[in-house]
């Protein structure tokens, strides 16, 4: 009987640890309790770790069934763990998202869907065979060295995560970055979700505005919050609920008055959402703030530049720009071209009628948006906080869309003051510290080269899955299979490791591709690898990560990795040290030096090494060579100088906001950027970038000509990244069924036309590939503009349908913009009988 359900009580002497949520950028703080199975605590406050009277309902820090897990350490003993949101963490104040609140289900255990964690290294020989670490490392080190010697650094390629949280952290980015950029020195590197190693909001960086420049409390202090292409209800949940929603509800008036004495403060904060969909952020913001305080600019996808520039044009018309700020803090020669770009030589009427026509946003709403952003309230300009995320970043042209949006913050001087800023919302957490990338901006589109039979001969994929997250992903699957087959055939012959090294080198010289995967689950990518390195992940090592306000915390180790899995830094060190030894055997001092510096003994050592390097100067935090010197950044926004694990751990879940500087012997964090009026360019000033609405790129235009539906895509609340772990969470499986399909939101109009009902299986096809998905009918999307879950496993990946087009300035794909045809394949599958198809995005207004 499920009535017998219970969650064990942590005893008063339970071990305690601090961690953060593994998933989104917000990095909510969590407390971890660990105690031996069978040694539960009692209900009286003295007998449990929560110090709560559990004979009554525990309304404050309840341990839900999904926060509890059972883990087995390598010594064979079993422990309960409870991973509970931390009420004292200023990020989330005890709130949990559906992701973080389910972390008890995410731990490795033999009797749960996480049981297939990678546990042992493997080498292909008619399928992946378990081998020793020594053999796997010998093979990869041997091939790497041989290819370096024969072809040079660019024969070795990587696609690797560059972030914090699960699958990342400063220790991760440093160890992998040091290996590929400093030791191998390859330019054949791309980041987990894009064909470049550089940051996504490159234009913002070049304007002198690193993209994480705010404090979360700024959203409590803003008069107006603007969100372009973001859905924080689902994607930055407790930033939204613990900071933005209180403002929208009118709960932060006193803080606003304190920040701006004498300013007239309206009861509710206002929010502008720029999004083609009526997302759950729009509907819940209306619920919190009232309809009159929420403005939804439901633009035609890809028309962002026209919209942003029209808003700028209205601001200039009314002289709402911040003249003082522009005079003091903006490079003067950039203002003229900006004014030109927003149509100052045309009449306001002409600009607005064009904007209305192109974007589909009523002119009155464009004017209202400009007023909410910039019209003075009494004598004060409003404090406006600008946020943006993938809807803008992955739109028609990354560079111009981001520039035109950040321009609005520069124009109105909404930078560096309480309640202002212009920041990406962020997807995953961050934690970037790598040596400089050895190539030029915007990096190499490695996957395209590989698809053309060129590029690196060894491809080492770490903590990501390009089969689900590359543009034209189907072509990636194809080259992995076809070029990988040549190497598999060689490895199938077996032999000594030396025989196999030779076999692999011959095979790659004959057009093959040697694939190494370093990961935690047997993803589709891992299944195609010739060597698999099983990695440890968050909870299984001490690691550091920053959130969307650069808050650095130490996430403590509280369990052992499964099997023989190791932290990524150890894996990189094993291979580097082996290559070093091989060169040592040849008395090649130069190469020995290149592969030195991997003598770390602990997670803390890796951090120390990274921190020391960070202190030596600006590392490659998205500030590439190849820029004109006038636009080079002068500081690293994710700098970790002056820091070490012990100090960070002592700060608990509130951590410290990087960069840190030392004053009077005290380490101080940086709450928000630009309070000193300094921007990240040699001039110390910010600069406008004049942005132009691009034409639809030819690859996309060709699809548009043939296919009727614009396929937008993105995330869903409980579905994290590629779903690599989400689909191993029993509550996700219960919600969505076991098919691991993406769903596609269709408007009622489109659904009717296609003869499709919620739950039906549909086929989505264009010139690049075919995907299938489950229809979910909702009027959150407009007719002709379905929205598909991005990066899902099996046949559901929207990436299959995305064209290979990238913005030539940044190499960032236009993931959000592809066209396809849709047809019904089958009615609702039986396994979806227990899946709710009630409207996802419009849950409010009771």
């Amino acid at each position, binding site marked *: *009987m*499920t*009535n*017998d*359900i*219970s*969650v*064990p*009580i942590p005893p008063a002497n339970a071990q305690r640890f601090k961690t953060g949520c593994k998933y989104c950028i917000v990095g909510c703080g969590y407390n971890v309790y660990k105690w031996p199975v069978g040694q539960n605590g009692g*209900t009286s406050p003295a007998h449990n770790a929560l110090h709560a009277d*559990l*004979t*009554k*309902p*525990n*309304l*404050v820090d*309840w*341990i*839900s*069934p*999904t*926060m509890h897990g059972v883990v087995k350490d390598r010594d064979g003993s079993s422990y309960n763990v409870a991973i509970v949101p931390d*009420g004292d963490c200023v990020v989330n*104040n*005890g*709130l*949990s*998202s*559906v992701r973080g*609140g*389910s972390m008890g289900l995410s731990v490795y255990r033999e009797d749960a869907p996480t049981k297939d964690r990678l546990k042992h290294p493997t080498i292909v020989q008619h399928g992946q065979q378990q081998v020793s670490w020594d053999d796997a490392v010998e093979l990869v080190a041997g091939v790497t060295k041989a290819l370096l010697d024969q072809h040079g650094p660019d024969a070795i390629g990587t696609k690797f995560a560059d972030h914090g949280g699960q699958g990342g952290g400063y220790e991760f980015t440093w160890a992998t970055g040091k290996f590929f950029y400093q030791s191998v020195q390859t330019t054949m590197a791309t980041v987990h979700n894009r064909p470049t190693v550089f940051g996504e909001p490159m234009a913002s960086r070049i304007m002198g505005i690193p993209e994480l420049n705010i404090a979360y409390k700024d959203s*409590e202090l803003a008069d107006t919050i603007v969100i372009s292409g973001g859905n924080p*209800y*689902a994607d930055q*949940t407790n930033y939204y609920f*613990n900071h933005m*929603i*209180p403002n929208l509800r009118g*709960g*932060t008036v*006193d*803080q606003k008055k304190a920040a701006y004495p004498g300013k007239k403060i309206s009861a509710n904060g206002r929010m502008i959402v720029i999004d083609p969909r009526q997302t*759950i952020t729009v509907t*819940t913001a209306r*619920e919190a703030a009232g309809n009159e305080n929420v403005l939804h600019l439901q633009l035609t996808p890809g028309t962002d530049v026209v919209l942003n520039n029209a808003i700028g044009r209205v601001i200039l018309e009314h002289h709402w720009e911040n003249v003082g700020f522009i005079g003091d803090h903006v490079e003067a020669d950039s203002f003229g071209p900006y004014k030109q770009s927003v149509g100052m030589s045309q009449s306001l009427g002409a600009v607005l009628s064009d904007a209305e026509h192109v974007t589909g946003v009523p002119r009155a709403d464009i004017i209202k948006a400009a007023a909410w952003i910039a019209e003075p309230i009494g004598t004060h300009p409003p404090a406006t906080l600008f946020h943006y995320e993938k809807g803008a970043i992955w739109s028609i042209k990354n560079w111009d869309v981001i520039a035109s949006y950040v321009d609005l913050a520069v124009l109105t001087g909404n930078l560096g003051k309480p309640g202002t800023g212009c920041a990406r919302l962020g997807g995953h957490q961050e934690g970037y510290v790598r040596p400089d990338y050895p190539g030029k901006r915007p990096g190499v589109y490695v996957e395209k080269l590989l698809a053309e039979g060129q590029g690196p001969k060894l491809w080492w994929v770490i903590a990501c899955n390009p089969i689900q997250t590359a543009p034209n992903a189907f072509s990636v699957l194809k080259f992995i299979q076809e070029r990988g087959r040549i190497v598999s055939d060689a490895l199938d012959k077996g032999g000594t490791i030396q025989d196999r090294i030779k076999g692999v080198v011959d095979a790659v010289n004959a057009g093959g591709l040697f694939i190494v995967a370093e990961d935690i689950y047997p993803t589709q990518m891992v299944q195609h690898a010739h060597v698999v390195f099983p990695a440890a992940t968050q909870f299984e090592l001490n690691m550091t990560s920053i959130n969307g306000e650069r808050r650095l915390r130490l996430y403590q180790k509280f369990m052992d990795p499964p099997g023989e899995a190791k932290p990524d830094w150890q894996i990189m060190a094993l291979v580097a040290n082996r290559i070093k030894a091989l060169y040592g055997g040849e008395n090649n001092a130069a190469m020995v030096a290149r592969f030195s510096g991997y003598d770390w003994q602990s997670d803390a050592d890796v951090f120390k090494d990274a921190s020391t390097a960070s202190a030596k100067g600006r590392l490659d935090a998205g500030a590439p060579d190849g820029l004109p010197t006038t636009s080079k950044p002068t500081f690293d926004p994710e700098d970790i100088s002056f820091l070490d694990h012990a100090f960070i751990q002592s700060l608990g879940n509130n951590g410290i906001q990087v960069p840190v500087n030392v004053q009077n012997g005290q380490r101080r964090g940086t709450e928000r950027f630009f309070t000193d009026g300094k921007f990240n360019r040699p001039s110390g000033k910010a600069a406008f970038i004049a942005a132009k609405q691009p034409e639809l790129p030819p690859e996309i235009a060709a699809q548009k000509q043939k296919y009727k539906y614009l396929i937008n895509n993105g995330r869903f*609340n409980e579905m994290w990244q590629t779903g690599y772990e989400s689909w191993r969470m029993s*509550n996700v499986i*219960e*919600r969505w069924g076991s098919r691991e399909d993406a769903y596609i939101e269709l408007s009622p109009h489109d659904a009717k036309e296609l003869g499709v009902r919620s739950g039906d299986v549909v086929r989505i096809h264009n010139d690049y590939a075919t995907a299938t998905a489950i229809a979910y009918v909702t009027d959150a999307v407009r007719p002709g503009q379905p929205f598909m879950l991005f990066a899902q496993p099996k046949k559901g990946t929207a990436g299959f349908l995305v064209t290979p087009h990238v913005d030539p300035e940044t190499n960032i794909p236009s993931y959000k913009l592809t066209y396809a045809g849709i047809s019904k394949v089958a009615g609702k599958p039986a396994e979806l009988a*227990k*899946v*709710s198809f*009630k*409207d*996802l*995005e419009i*849950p*409010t207004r*009771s």
Partner: protein
Amino acid sequence: MPVSRRNFLGSAGALAALELATAPRPGAAAEAASPSIKVGRAKAFKVGVPVQFSYPDAAAPALAIKLSGPVPGGVGPAHDIVAYSQLCVHKGCPVNFNAQREVFMCPCHFTTYDAELSGQVIIGHATTNLPRIRLTYDAASDVVTAVGVDGLIYGRVNNKRMA
């Protein structure tokens, strides 16, 4: 600290709900893990109008509802009466019933549960279904009785009656 009150947003809501909660019906055995508690007569239910009761004890408010049609696990002559804990399993706020969509909606952080489908989370921050109160129906007397819970009620280590 200005943010600290938010910690208790959920709990304050939950406490308010507890005050509304009715006492258990006399005759329910205090020591029973799964007491039987009379909810009401099926005839008295009106479609879409929630009936408040509590289960398994006074600190556990619950809602019984006659839906617009039969559902799996529904009781009564038309198999359309269902009941759920009223405490959102995110932070314990009392949920509201929306008769038009037949969903429960939480006013605190907008989690939505499907009343027709075992309290499944449609979207939100709750990590389990809204706990469902198991009901039985006696045709002779037309009485709907609560007899157990599927899922753990917010704030508890188990679903046993609290003193």
